[in-house]
């Protein structure tokens, strides 16, 4: 029996030795602990990059473009995709519209990245901290501007992690849009005080496309331009003043030569010489891999595959890849250009030949009145506003995507002062002429007969730049605009989109926009 006791003792010892192995700390190998980062300038840069990365993702072309352009007479896309394009065109969307949900959550995801970075940045106490914080706050304010424009009543959140006991709310819905407007205004004004001015940036090329003081001033101008719709009170004079701040800063200019507009949309528009007009852009690369956030695929999506290798008037269009023949310009829009207007050449209609004069394609407008019964591949006008990039590997081009141009500041000021005193229209005409004249071999001047002329010029100038729906709403024409397929007016509530259903489900503290 003695032996037994010894044995038990030995095995107990064994057990005790093994029970020492009770350390349950996790070892991180391939990820970084959040509790100990953003300590060096490089690490702060990495955090700032995350903000810009998400800002970029929030502008995946097909989603915002679909809401802003396909809902107007600018554009259409014949793809099925669960009827989302059809709903956009006919204004029959509801809260389950997929791209709408993506726009909402992606913009908010960018806001969350801003919130999260601002919180950690405060802990780092860097010397240039306030400037970087102002930069991030400008991105956040711009994101809120997009939300207030598309969805109206959205919650304002500035903390990094949502408290489940205190979920974000947009209630009461009566004046939430106004509150968001006031928040953006305050944020931008505050940011302008701390932001770096482009005038002080020595290496402008190295700074691009980060936001600067002048970017924030431009955004403030756009905010005031839409103040009547967004806050209920028109702020035309404030708009004009903000535009003047941008104009007087003298950091932006328009290439005034014939076809100068195309410089801003060139494949190498990130080069300082080409981007004098760009106020806010998104970096794009001609990557081979599938990544719509990193590459610009607007052209690829739009152009017909037959256009590969097409020439026009003795000039190579530089289309070296087969496009998808999807997003197209409506013929209704094509008709509003003067036949000599350079901007009309950015829309491809009619016959195209290759270098040897062999007919490649005869592009016609959509013929079918039954929406989405598109069976002729050669229908739908392709758009090459972004200059075709001959270095495209598969789908993606280098052309940086433009969110805001100096032309918009000029036209905004023109509109503001014209609205303030329609009688005194010469200043407004002069401003618009700056933008208009360069589209003609023999420069022309612009004359305003009515407010609608300004809207139409904006429609031509900003085709597919994701601002036309906002403009139509400001002019009270979004719900009455007709197309081949949309033949009736809508109720006014369709001037904003519904809060996506998925968001309503995850957050019971949200109210749906009226009538949705």
């Amino acid at each position, binding site marked *: 029996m003695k032996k037994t006791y010894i044995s038990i003792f030995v095995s107990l010892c064994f057990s005790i030795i093994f029970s020492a192995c009770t350390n349950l700390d996790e070892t991180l190998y391939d990820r970084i602990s959040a509790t100990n980062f953003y300590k060096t300038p490089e690490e702060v840069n990495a955090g700032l*990059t*995350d903000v810009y990365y998400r800002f970029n993702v929030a502008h995946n072309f097909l989603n915002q473009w679909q809401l802003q352009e396909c809902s107007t007479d600018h554009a259409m896309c014949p793809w099925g995709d669960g009827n989302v394009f059809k709903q956009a065109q006919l204004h029959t969307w509801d*809260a389950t519209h997929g791209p709408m949900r993506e726009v909402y959550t992606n913009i908010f995801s960018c806001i969350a990245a801003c919130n999260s970075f601002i919180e950690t940045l405060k802990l780092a106490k860097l010397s240039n901290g306030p400037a970087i914080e102002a930069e991030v706050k400008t991105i956040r304010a711009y994101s809120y501007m997009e939300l207030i424009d598309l969805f109206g009543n959205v919650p304002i959140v500035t903390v990094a992690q949502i408290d489940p006991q205190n979920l974000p709310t947009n209630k009461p819905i009566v004046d939430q849009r106004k509150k968001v407007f006031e928040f953006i205004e305050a944020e931008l004004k505050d940011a302008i005080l701390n932001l770096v001015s482009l005038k002080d940036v020595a*290496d402008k090329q190295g700074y691009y496309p980060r936001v600067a003081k002048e970017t924030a001033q431009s955004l403030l101008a756009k905010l005031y331009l839409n103040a009547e719709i967004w806050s209920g009170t028109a702020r035309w004079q404030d708009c004009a003043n903000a535009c003047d701040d941008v104009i007087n800063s003298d950091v932006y200019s328009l290439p005034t030569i014939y076809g100068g507009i195309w410089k801003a949309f060139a494949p190498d528009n990130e080069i300082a010489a080409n981007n004098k007009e760009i106020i806010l852009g998104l970096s794009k690369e001609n990557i081979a891999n599938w990544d719509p956030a990193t590459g610009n695929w607007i052209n690829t999506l739009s152009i017909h595959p037959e256009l590969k290798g097409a020439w026009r008037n003795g000039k190579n269009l530089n289309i070296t890849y087969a496009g998808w023949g999807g997003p197209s310009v409506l013929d209704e829009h094509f008709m509003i250009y003067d036949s000599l207007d350079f901007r009309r050449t950015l829309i491809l209609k009619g016959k195209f030949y290759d270098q040897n004069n062999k007919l490649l394609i005869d592009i016609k407008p959509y013929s079918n009145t039954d929406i989405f019964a598109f069976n002729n591949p050669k229908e739908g006008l392709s758009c090459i506003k972004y200059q075709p990039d001959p270095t495209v590997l598969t789908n993606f081009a280098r052309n940086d995507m433009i969110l805001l141009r100096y032309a918009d500041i000029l036209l905004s000021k023109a509109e503001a002062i014209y609205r303030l005193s329609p009688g005194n229209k010469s200043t407004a005409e002069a401003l618009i002429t700056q933008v208009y004249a360069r589209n003609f071999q023999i420069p022309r001047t612009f004359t305003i007969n009515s407010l609608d002329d300004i809207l139409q010029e904006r429609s031509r100038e900003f085709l597919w730049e994701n601002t036309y729906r906002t403009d139509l709403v400001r002019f009270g024409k979004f719900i009455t605009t007709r197309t081949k397929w949309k033949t009736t007016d809508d109720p006014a509530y369709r001037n904003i989109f519904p809060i996506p259903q998925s968001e309503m489900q995850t957050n019971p503290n949200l109210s749906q926009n009226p009538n949705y």
Partner: protein
Amino acid sequence: MNQLLCIHGIKPLFYTFFRKRSLTILTLTVLLLNCFTSNSYSQNTKLTLSENNSTLLKVVKAIENKSEYSFFYNEKIDVNIPVSIVANQKSVKEILDKVLLNTQIKYKILGRQIAFYTKDEAEPFLNQKQIPKITGIVNDENGESIPGVTVRVKGTKSGVITDVKGNYSFTDISENSILQFNFIGMKMQEIVIGNKTIINVTLMQDAVNLEEVVAIGYGSAKKSDITGSMTHLTSEKFNSGVILAPEQLMQGKVSGVNITLNSGEPGANSKIVIRGGTSINASNDPLYVIDGVPVGFDAGSFLAGTSDRQATLANNPLNMINSSDIESINVLKDASATAIYGSRGANGVIIVTTKKGKDGKSTIEYESSVGVSSIRKKLDVLSADQYRTYMNSDSIKLKVTGWKDGGANTDWQDQIFRNGIIQSHNLALLGGSNNTNYRASLNYTNQQGTMIASDLEKITGRININHKAFNDKLNISLFMTSAFLKGHSAPNAGGVDGKSGGTLRDALRNDPTYPVKDANDVYTWHGPENPNPVEETLVRSDETNTYRNMGNAILDYKFTNYLSFNTNIGFTKENVDRMTYEPNSGRIGSVSHGNASHQFRNDFSKLLETNLVFNKKFGMHSINALAGYSFQEFVNTGAYMQASNFISDATTYNAIGNGDKNTYIIYTWKNSHKLISFYGRVTYDLNNKYLFTATVRQDGSTRFGSNNKWGTFPSAAIGWRISEEEFLKPVDFISNLKLRVGYGVTGNQEIGDYISLPTLSAGGNTYIIGGKQYTAVGSNQYYNPDLKWESTAQTNIGLDFGFFNSRLSGSLDVYKKTTNDLLLSFAVPSPAVIPSFTDNVGQVENRGIELELNGVIVKSKKFGWDAYANISHNENKVLSISNSKWKQEQIYTGSTACPGFSGVTTQIIKPGLPLGTFYGYEYLGVDAKGKQIFNDLNTDGKILPGDDRKVIGNSQPDFTYGFGSKFTVKRFSIDIFFRGVQGVTILNSTQLDMADKTKLYTPLTDNARVNIGSSALTDGLAYNEMAVYSSKWIQDASYLRLENVTLNYNFNVSAVKWLSRLNLYLTGQNLLVITKYDGFDPEVSNGLDAMNYPRPTTIVCGIKAQF
């Protein structure tokens, strides 16, 4: 004379029972053998007794207790006569002489046996004739000889073992001796030698072997002592045929276990759900324990291909085992059985035990089979003529301009499907001596898939060695297994991971009027969205090499006969390499100018377990106790690299660096987790009637929040063997009746690593500032220090029964299990820096009933008929998806996996509804214009997702069942097995994808020519009416499948000296499916039929031999 019964080693408890049936003295003379060997015992053994005013019976008992003597007598002997004796160190002869002095009883001592007889009876142990030699063959019911049968002369230690041909022989043996034939799983048989010199014996299978020992967690137990709910399948009950994925061995044969094959590809894994799904986000896979090692490979882990047409490969860790090496599979179902596995027990535990060596002469087993598999049916799409007619019909001509007849008649399904050849070879060597036994095996299997370009080659090797040392006190078992699998996959992504497209989709959709190759021997082609399925399948290369190793050693040391200590040290290692290439020369790869990828994974786990085991009987109390400690660590690493833009196709994926540097995609990963556990179990058996089991396990896991690292999982169960009660003894037809009641709590921790920690990730996200590319580092996970186990509380009530001498046996179980603290990953309201958050939220309940039956209907030497059946019903219900912090009413989930349906959800998770509930519009038909009509539930004239959707089906079946029968006629046997499910619906996404007539000719995307399903012509939808997800596509998928038919012939090999057994068999798998469902197969995982690789019908012919 056939009422022989031995009372050797009589025990007080049973004395009365046996006495009634005591035998005639004469028959007891068989035990004489001992008299030759130990006649000195009676002279040397001295006893001390004191039995005043006692009975003969008590004296007999006292002698038996104090010595090795056994008494034998018949009913003529009155053992209750009063006697008295006081003896001090007397021999038994002296004692008996004194006790029997004044009685009519005489006695005779032979060795350790003492027989009583009366004066008028003949003296026992006389008339003994010696027989010089006796021989014979032992066969089973099928007439097959059985090697390794122990043949003993009853009451002695002398015995022999039958040789490979079942032969045995004895020399110089008394004609009164009784021979005992013993073999595991067979009924013991006894035969009196008499005047025979050849005794051939047929052993019958034990219908229900109550003493069957089954593997349970950290040990084994007699089946009769088990209080938990489990189903034990031994190899002869497995499904037969070519089975690369071992879980298929038990598909349909275990009640409460629903196994659905994920794909018909060779070696594909299955979805196994035991007693209904408990988790929403965490894994529902059971825990696999192979020879004591919890397997460290994630069954759900996968490998991605370069393009979304390449299937995401699922991993099947069980593939490392060769099916014919498996001795038994034990499925632990209720908490009382699984709680010993604590945090990994909630989804059930599957214990796989491999075959061991056997003492005796070395035996060689060889098995070889060849077979062919083919798809069971084709989908009904438009034939070339139907397509032509339709495209040229007046109504379509107007809408479709530019379509040209390709001039051929091609059945594209015939082009991508083929008859797949299968061959398998198996060699095993087993044997052993007194201290060591071994079994080693090698298997080679090669299976061509029914889809072109897909195949799997599998080589497995296994060695099991068992060695006893130090007077049998130390027992060492070594298990080593190694597997190599080389597979090629067709680019058929359908149905897995939400991907669609690939070989099958393109074959179904290709214009049937076009030939496979044109007149110039070039593949026809309709653009990258609608490629030629033959070309895209054959030009791509996609190879996966998998190496799996597993080994463990179990050292068991017996301190005493009731206390032992064992240690189990083991490891698992898995390397998977997947290489893909899309050549520039093919039109698929020309888009990216050649595209190569190479991914490898390396999973490793190590295990250390130590257990202290106590096992002792105190009179009518018997106690078995276990205390243990376990440590298991898992480390996963991997890498992925990809490049495109190759100058030449010469080097393919073998030199990825030759691609364009700008196209490189590279990432690697490494993560690990640990599980540290303390556990214990006590089983208590009172009087063989009342059984009690309690277990507790404390698990610590690195996976959980710092506030909840440790979890405790208790369970308790009682068993009552009612058939052992006196009041049931007279009921002849009841042979076994046991009631089991158990309750316990188990956990689930399968949520992945590091979920509770706040982390930042560089994640490969970049942005270009000032022309330079910067890497973004941002939050990718919220902090959740409270994260803890998902816990499942389960109550089980079961009844095991055996009637008519166990000719009819089975078990019935009812259970209820409630899963709390679901590890739910749910959407965080905007603005969320991370879109989802994992927390313990919600409750799911499963309730069910299971019945298993086994019957031996006819049993005779020439004809046998066995039947078996099981049926189970499970009701799943979500109770809550909220907790005190997070509130949500429902979760919309699931997708159609069809292009063009992005953002469309197909299912709902909502309290009160089961998981897998389909949710959508109710389809009412079409109107005059061919528009779909849906039920406008709120009658507002509009059909909106928010208001007009409802429950339209459920993918969890009401019943699953299986039944089979085996008939044996002489040397022929036929085994037929059916299984099915009832009351289930699935989403026919394949049909939905093939319904859209506008896709027939889509000039917009590079002149794609697309075929449609035949049903699309008759479903009434207008030409340009786009199909919407609705109840139209939710279809009844109940089925009855003829799963397996095996015809076996057992040759008479008695004339061939070197051969002990030869069988020839023919097996058909998946021969017939009776169902209303018109897709390829109604059996799909997750209720989604989306271009799934269909499961083939297989016919295999094989031969099995033993030398």
